[in-house]
């Protein structure tokens, strides 16, 4: 939502102007807002309910399931999270897994993309094709052999096992490459005349210009890793190594579950993403929009 998009006339505005002129607008407008309103209730109520349930007592939950708000507020759910789960460890593991993996991905993907976009070498087309192949093969196909590899490396249930196999993403390489290709070549040539090598060009010229691409890849990767369930579930085996989604999913799968505790855990696990979303929404939108516009 940059100022530029604000100024540009959009399809919506012109279509609306038309409808206003034609005079048959009231019914259209009313039905549109009814649709949006109903949609909003559906979109928001689950989150409001989740937040409210995390502050309710089990008795309150069973007694008034229809109420959207707690009759008596309690922090019991949040206390339970600390007592019934190794919660600090879950948070720590998730931060390490999502954070370190994202940093490595940004570095490796941008380096790889630099070579693919900026260095003429034999086999560049093949290299780019290999990246596209890995982009198309579903992650589940490699899951079992990678599990076996980690087993033989003795990396199961370790941080390196969680992080290293995910430390590069074909999608990130692709996105960085597309961005680097659009940066004028004259910049590199000028720098080369001044005696800069590839590493200086990459680090001091290309990367500073690629901040929007970096932000987009960072946001997309971090969110995907923070939210990932299947991978941590497969790689980790002890409660101390789990990430938040894996820990919560397994906790929720137990037969006797304290619902307020479960909701409190879910609230805490989505909090960082929610904060990032409200602070940097345009990068989330840019990420999605770039996936949509190739």
């Amino acid at each position, binding site marked *: 939502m940059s100022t530029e998009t604000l100024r540009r006339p959009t399809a919506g*505005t012109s279509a609306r102007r038309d409808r206003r002129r034609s005079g048959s607008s009231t019914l259209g407008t009313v039905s549109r807002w009814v649709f949006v309103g109903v949609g909003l209730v559906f979109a928001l109520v689950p989150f409001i309910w989740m937040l409210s349930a995390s502050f309710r007592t089990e008795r309150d939950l069973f007694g008034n*399931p229809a109420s959207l708000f707690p009759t008596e507020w309690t922090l019991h759910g949040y206390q339970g999270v600390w007592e019934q789960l190794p919660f600090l460890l879950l948070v720590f593991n998730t931060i390490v897994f999502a954070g370190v993996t994202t940093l490595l991905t940004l570095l490796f993907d941008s380096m790889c993309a630099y070579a693919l976009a900026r*260095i003429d070498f034999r086999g560049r087309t093949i290299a780019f094709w290999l990246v596209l192949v890995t982009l198309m093969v*579903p992650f589940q196909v490699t899951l079992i052999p990678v599990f076996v590899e980690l087993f033989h490396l003795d990396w199961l249930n370790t941080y390196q096992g969680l992080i290293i*196999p995910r430390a590069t993403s074909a999608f990130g390489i692709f996105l960085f490459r597309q961005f680097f290709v659009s940066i004028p070549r004259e910049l590199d040539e000028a720098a080369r005349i001044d005696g800069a090598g590839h590493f200086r060009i990459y680090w001091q010229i290309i990367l500073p210009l690629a901040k929007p691409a970096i932000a987009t890849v960072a946001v997309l990767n971090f969110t995907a890793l923070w939210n990932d369930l299947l991978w941590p579930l*497969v790689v980790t085996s002890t409660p101390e190594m789990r990430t938040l989604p894996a820990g919560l999913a397994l906790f929720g799968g137990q037969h006797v579950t304290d619902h307020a505790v479960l909701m409190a855990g879910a609230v805490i696990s989505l909090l960082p993403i929610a904060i990032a979303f409200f602070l940097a929404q345009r990068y989330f939108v840019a990420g*999605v929009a770039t996936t949509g516009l190739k």
Partner: protein
Amino acid sequence: MTVLTKVREPQDGSRTGIRGERRRRRRFRLSPALLFLAPSFLILGVFVLWPILVSFWYSLHEWTIGADDQPWVGLGNYIALTQDPKFWGALLHTVEITVISVAGIVVLGLALALALARDNLGSRIIRSAFFFPTVVSLTSIGLVWRFLLDPDLGLVGAITSALGLGNVGFLQSPQLALPTIIFVNIWKNAGFVMIILIAGLKGVPAERYEAARLDGAGSWALLRYITLPALRPTMLFGTLIMTIQSFQLFDLVYVMTGGGPLFSTDTLVTMLFREGFVNFQTGYAAAISWALFLVIVIISALQLRIFRYNDVD
């Protein structure tokens, strides 16, 4: 000898000089490229490309992790797969989830995009509300919905009993569990398609609307003849992304039903997880992953065709 070599040296030297220069230039070009590529390609090679081959190799064996003897069964796993009613069930559920979800997501996403295309503060805030579920983990969403739909203490149960429908156990019924998961999948992803379609709408030149309006087109005609054709590439892309994502659905099912009741919500990936990491039927699970791959290859081929179709620029 010494004379001969001395005589030869300048000739050889000059020749290797040129070759050396050429080689040096090539080496100069090759080595930084290799260094730049090395980390990503090492990881992609060890943890993606090689495992693709290995996965196929496993699928031809009755493979068990760590065992000394991995008996070769040829296509045995694939034959067993075609005779496994659970596999056909999982494939059917996956297809049902994908077809219905994608249709729902695209229709709803389009309706939201058209309703919220204007760039004012109000619609931007409302857009964020619809976009928000797409960034939240499927685990949290699955847990919340499982809880909302709980017949004893969920909001939905309270509403249905207030309406006189009784406490419906949506996730406990083999008939209702799959539609419920599809509903939640649509609920989560409609905002994603909405966002890419709004981005697509911005690409439609305003002059086209002006021109059509001068020709006397009403708002329905504008939608039918200008907006929808202009959005077609974006809609196709959204459809493909959602299709691939729905085919790989795991988290939601794992958290909400675990594939039950009575395997009524089992998908290809939950089945793969169960066979590979619960029953440790590694070879069999690899065969399932190749079945999944086959389906995705068909979709990717479609995707490539559409890509080429749109790659005019």
